């Protein structure tokens, strides 16, 4: 369940996207990778997932440093990426092994936990964006991954669905205590979910700051403390110059 990145860099056609990223995640920790667009957050996540194995440096998952997809890792993409020819139920059982009955039972449990019971036989074209993303979440969680990688999973959703799914994620995390790496550009989301926020900056992206959020969960959205943290992050990203407009 341990995850460790040592000096991970990635170069695309001579252009370095991220440089010397070192992160150690405690088991069960939720880590946020935060940064502006193009700073290489997703690149780091893809390297961890094993979908991209042309990086330099070392990534060790439970001590295994092979550059490949590990079956202990789950990935929730920015888009639902459901297979359009399979109904919801078969999309969720897609990555499961074992007998059909077992798979169906597990899938039904998870569909219920994302609030989609009764929708098993629908096809992806019949789902709304939020429902499709919930199916994608169920599909990633149903294999009980020890490490869960999320690439801006809620960014395409409306504000209400987003909050709902964030709470859902925390619920699931409470039950399974997976180690989570969440890539996001939404500061509020990072503050609401993460134990630790790693701010990436620049081109090539490097780690700028690490922020440990000690608040107990469930956290109040938009509390005083959160606003304080948010100000700090915005400062680090040089985005907090609102006063220069007002003065």
């Amino acid at each position, binding site marked *: 369940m341990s995850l460790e990145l040592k000096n991970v860099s990635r170069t695309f056609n001579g252009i370095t996207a991220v440089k010397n990223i070192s992160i150690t995640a405690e088991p069960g920790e939720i880590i946020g990778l935060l940064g502006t667009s193009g700073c290489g957050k997703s690149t780091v996540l893809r390297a961890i997932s094993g*979908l991209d194995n042309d990086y330099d440096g070392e990534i060790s998952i439970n001590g295994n440093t092979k550059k490949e997809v590990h*079956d202990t*890792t789950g*990935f929730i993409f920015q*888009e639902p990426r459901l*297979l359009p*020819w399979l109904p919801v139920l078969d999309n969720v059982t*897609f990555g499961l092994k074992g007998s059909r009955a077992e798979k169906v039972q597990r899938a039904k449990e998870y569909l219920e936990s994302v609030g989609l019971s009764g929708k098993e036989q629908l*096809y992806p*074209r019949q789902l709304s964006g939020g429902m499709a993303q919930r199916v994608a979440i169920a599909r990633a969680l149903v294999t009980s991954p020890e490490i869960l990688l999320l690439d801006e999973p809620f960014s395409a959703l409306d504000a209400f669905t987003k909050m709902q799914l964030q709470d859902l994620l925390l619920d699931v995390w409470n039950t399974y205590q997976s180690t989570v790496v969440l890539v996001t550009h939404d500061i509020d989301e990072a503050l609401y979910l993460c134990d630790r926020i790693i701010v990436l900056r620049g081109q090539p992206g490097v780690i700028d700051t690490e922020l440990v959020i000690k608040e107990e969960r469930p956290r109040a959205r938009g509390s005083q403390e959160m606003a304080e943290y948010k100000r700090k992050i915005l400062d680090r990203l040089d985005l907090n110059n609102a006063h220069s407009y007002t003065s």
Partner: protein
Amino acid sequence: MAKNQSELASVLVTSRGVKQKSVRVKKQYKGLQSIMLGSILPIVLITVWELLSRIGFFPSYQLPAPTVIFQTIVGMAQDGTLWGHIGITTYRVFAGFVLGTIAAVILGSLVGFYKKAEQLFDPMIQAFRSIPSLAWVPLFILWMGIGEPSKVTMIAVGVFFPIYLNIVSGILGVDRKLIEVGKMYGLSTFQLVRRIILPASLPSFLVGLRSGLGLGWMFVVAAELMGASQGLGFLLVVGQNMSQPETIIASIILFAIIGKLSDWVLKKVETRSLHWQDRLVK
């Protein structure tokens, strides 16, 4: 109270049943309407044609009346020759179609999946494609005689190209994002092919099948014109040689009917297997 409730429930159930029934009736009505709309033009054309033939506007040795053509078909059906002609033509198309499809699936998958196979085969296949397929006819006849093998090969060649091209482009066009999902679940190459690449390229494959079948019907005419003793294409030759336009037109109409029928079967298969597609419904 309980009784009332159950009564209420039964009323609800029956009203729902009525609703479903009315929906079904509506659907049937809609289907009937579209059939009627589609048949207006043909009926008008045929009537006008029949009238003009009757008053002698079209000379009967050039364009006989629809009824005469219909009688020709019925006559052939009665003396039994019709079924032989239809049977042998359909058999030729079917055999050529199956052979062409098998070849296209094998080569198309190889070229789609393996870069090396693409480099090896694709340039040559593309070069062959630029030869008009009918140009092969004399060569095939020289090699295989005027019997069945040359005709079936000819049709297979025609069927091959659209299917091949569609398979290759279908496989190359599979969304990388879906393949990544498969990789994330640790699928092997074979599993990736079976569970993601094949279903994802199925739409394009079916388009290829349909256009391949269309070409198959085209090539069977060419093949039968070249030399045959039976078949719908042979009827065309007979009609020409014996100055019987009604035989020619009867043959054309029969081609249209079976061609349309075979395409309809494929279209049914297509809608069946692609019901998951998010398409525009008019």
